[in-house]
């Protein structure tokens, strides 16, 4: 046997020994939360599709420059080179007829803060920033606190002593 393939052989043998000896399960349990139960390689039945939230109630924003979530369904709304269904309600000219919130001035600005005549190309694809919501419970907890809460806590703490 040529001496050169000896190291290869040794690696293969060591590999086999190591593989036989692993003392942790290769098939770890799946992360709980999204798909409770099962292991990583197991396919679990998919959860049922949730409905789009369509209550038409604006949600609170967590901070002033948060893009608001979409409070209505957007099924089948076409946004492409041919047209923008969102703007057929949210544009300056159409917002009175549709009673939809007009897109704010930031949507007309280019990246230098220069206001343009029409919607800025970087704001054309609305769902890049605004998303519709589903009728589901949040999968993971969230301990975010708004600035108002922090200020209030501060004020309360100052009053205490």
């Amino acid at each position, binding site marked *: 046997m040529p001496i050169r393939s000896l190291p290869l052989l040794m690696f293969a043998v060591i590999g086999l020994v190591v593989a036989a000896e692993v003392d942790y399960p290769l098939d770890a349990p799946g992360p709980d939360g999204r798909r409770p139960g099962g292991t990583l390689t197991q396919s679990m039945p998919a959860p049922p599709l949730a409905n789009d939230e*369509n209550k*038409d109630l604006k949600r609170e924003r967590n901070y002033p420059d948060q893009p608001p979530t979409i409070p*209505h369904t957007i099924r*089948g709304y*076409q946004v492409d080179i041919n*047209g923008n269904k969102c703007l*057929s309600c949210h544009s300056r000219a*159409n917002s009175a007829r549709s009673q939809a919130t007009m897109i704010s001035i930031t949507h007309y600005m280019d990246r230098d803060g220069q206001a343009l005549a029409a919607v800025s190309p970087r704001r054309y694809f609305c769902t890049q920033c605004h998303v519709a919501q589903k009728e589901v419970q949040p999968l993971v907890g969230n301990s975010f606190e708004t600035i108002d809460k922090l200020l209030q806590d501060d004020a309360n703490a100052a009053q205490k002593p």
Partner: protein
Amino acid sequence: MQALFRLFKEYWGILWRPSVYYSLGFLTLGGFVAGIIFWGGFNTALEVTNTEKFCTSCHEMRDNVFVELKDTIHYSNRSGVRASCPDCHVPHEWTHKIARKMQASKEVWGKLFGTIDTREKFLAHRRELAEHEWARLKANDSRECRNCHNFEFMDFTRQSKRAAAMHSTSLASGQATCIDCHKGIAHKLPDMRGVPGW
């Protein structure tokens, strides 16, 4: 084939010769029966062209508008009620139907000469085709939509707030009709530049 032709020639001859042998009663009755047969045959032929299968038998429709319809609510939904091409595109009343069929013959003409035989050519003509449908639905107050969606029976309390707000105002007062607000309900839209409201 030749026998058939002879038969036809004979029949044609009889049709044009003044009657010698047949009674007036037979002639009227015969005419009546023949009328039923021709009328029925005509309408049957018409019905055949009035199915989704016929509409999508040419690739122009199958590869463009039909595939797009398949993602929409009118093809697949929770209740399984669906709209097929003639439901939206062909009037129900006979006179309107015939008028639409005459127009459609022009589209068959387009098919024969390949006006829209590729996706690119179809897209180039799409705005024009869509404008025809918008104009038609606008002129007849969206009659084809209303064959299924009856305003009288819309329960605004069950509609979303946006829908109810629009339907109980502009639609109810007749200022706008379905197609004014629901363009692109079944297919992808053409270039919408210059369309009012877009």
